[in-house]
């Protein structure tokens, strides 16, 4: 039996809609399930107490602090390098051999699995540089990991700035540096922030690379040289070793809420960026 074009059109359309709804359904299923199970666990006491007896009791305060410190450090380190590279690629070069190598490196870094970043961070920061399992080792490792994302999103934001802006600036006899710092950068800022926020999300969600570099001790960190356990690592240990399902759900729910928040804010930024470009 051969299908008429109209029939195959209907079948294809049905399947495509089905695939899209399936994906949305899966996303809702995963998120709603974790939130329903975990949100009731999130009391003020859970958020402000440190974990006790391996995480069976107490809260997750120290893991929240650890996550925040590792992420903040990674972002602070990556910003000059990531955004600087993006400006170089977008504004200063027309594509020579060095540029090609830079692009190849950035794209390769983007594909390297997080566990390999973990191995590297462990041998380089923890052992070779003698930083030990610490917030600083974790932050540096994550900075390496998110570098390609920050480069790519910032470059896209810079390239989205209409060319006419630059031409007007040059025609007013502004120099290249003045044009970039006073015209292009402010116009691209919202898009750049969007990319940085998405990288914050990746840092918060990361487990493999942090567990090997920041460690898994759950005491309250006292400095950037303290070892720490991030929320994602805490959740993994609670869930995989069956220590406390209830606290695992609570931690996961907070992770999901954070990721959701970061995405909503990032989208708000990018929507304003697009609106401004019009």
């Amino acid at each position, binding site marked *: 039996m051969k299908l008429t074009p109209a029939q195959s059109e209907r079948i294809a359309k049905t399947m495509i809609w089905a695939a899209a709804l399936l994906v949305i359904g899966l996303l809702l299923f995963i998120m709603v399930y974790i939130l329903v199970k975990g949100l009731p666990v999130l009391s003020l006491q859970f958020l402000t107490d440190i974990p006790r007896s391996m995480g069976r009791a107490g809260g997750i305060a120290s893991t929240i602090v650890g996550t925040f410190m590792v992420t903040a450090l990674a972002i602070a380190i990556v910003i000059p390098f990531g955004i600087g590279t993006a400006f170089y690629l977008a504004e200063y070069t027309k594509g020579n051999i060095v540029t090609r190598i830079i692009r190849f490196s950035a*794209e390769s870094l983007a594909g390297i699995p997080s566990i*390999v970043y973990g191995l590297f961070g462990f041998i380089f920061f923890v052992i070779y540089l003698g930083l030990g399992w610490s917030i600083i080792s974790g932050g540096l490792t994550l900075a390496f990991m998110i*570098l390609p994302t920050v480069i790519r999103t910032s470059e896209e934001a810079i390239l989205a700035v209409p060319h006419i802006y630059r031409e007007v600036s040059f025609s007013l006899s502004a120099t290249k540096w003045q044009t970039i710092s006073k015209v292009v950068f402010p116009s691209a800022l919202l898009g750049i922030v969007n990319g940085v926020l998405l990288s914050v999300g990746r840092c918060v969600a990361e487990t493999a690379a942090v567990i090997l570099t920041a460690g898994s001790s759950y005491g309250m960190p006292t400095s950037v040289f303290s070892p720490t356990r991030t929320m994602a690592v805490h959740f993994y240990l609670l869930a995989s070793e069956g220590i406390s399902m209830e606290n695992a759900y609570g931690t*996961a729910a907070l992770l999901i809420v954070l990721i959701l928040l970061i*995405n909503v804010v990032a989208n708000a930024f990018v929507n304003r960026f697009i609106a401004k470009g019009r």
Partner: protein
Amino acid sequence: MKKFKERLSGRIFFTLALSSISALALITVFIISQGAPLIAEVGIIKFIFGMEWAPSRGEFGIFPMIIGSVTVTLGAAVIGVPVGICCSVFLAEFAPPAMSNLFRPAIQLLAGIPSVVYGFWGLLFVVPAVRNLFGGPGLSILTGSIILGIMILPTVISISEVSILALPRQYKEGALALGMTHWQTIYAVMLPAAKSGIVAAVILGIGRAVGETMAVIMVLGNAVAVPESILDPVRTLTTNIGIEMGYASGEHQQALFATGIVLFVAIMILNSFAQYVTRRK
């Protein structure tokens, strides 16, 4: 002064731009210098094709893990690629604007969910489902493939969508003007024209599946054995590192770095291939 600032800013941007090259070089050097001695000692053939992994007895063969990675990744591609391409066609061609404004952030969110959460969800729902429907322990290649199939969707969808949207309007208009239906236009004109982007999307998705650790560590069962069916547990290259790195030392630790080298090389080959496919146009 102005000129000095000009030259200085150019120099600074260039120096900052060298960071990605240095990062890649550092990673390559340190992973290789840590793992290569063990590969040299065991012999590369015996390391890659060795069937026995028993660090306490000095046996370091990772062939079962390579099989594990390959099977789980292929499974993920079989599950994730068709759904992903359908979704990208949906976004580019069928979704009403309100729907696509909802769908795009949703895909971004799917990419943002921590991989441990996927693993946990898989452990709670997919493992029992596979056990009840197909038998076996539930911790299996099939389970891992389903989880990874979902996890590669954002990569496959976003890159395919971009390549479909980048097609010249005339392709679609020409085909429609010849009396083709919408689906015939997509199937016979647009998808073939967007092929290189879609292939790159699939390769990058596969790269993600090969490299994923925390999601599969919870659902694969992690047995070091060559599987006989897709319902058997396996261990992948990534989970081998993830499980044992916590307590390994000495030669054992070197062997895990050597596992990392194999993973690293595989990913670099996939990446270069994806870059080659996208640039060829």
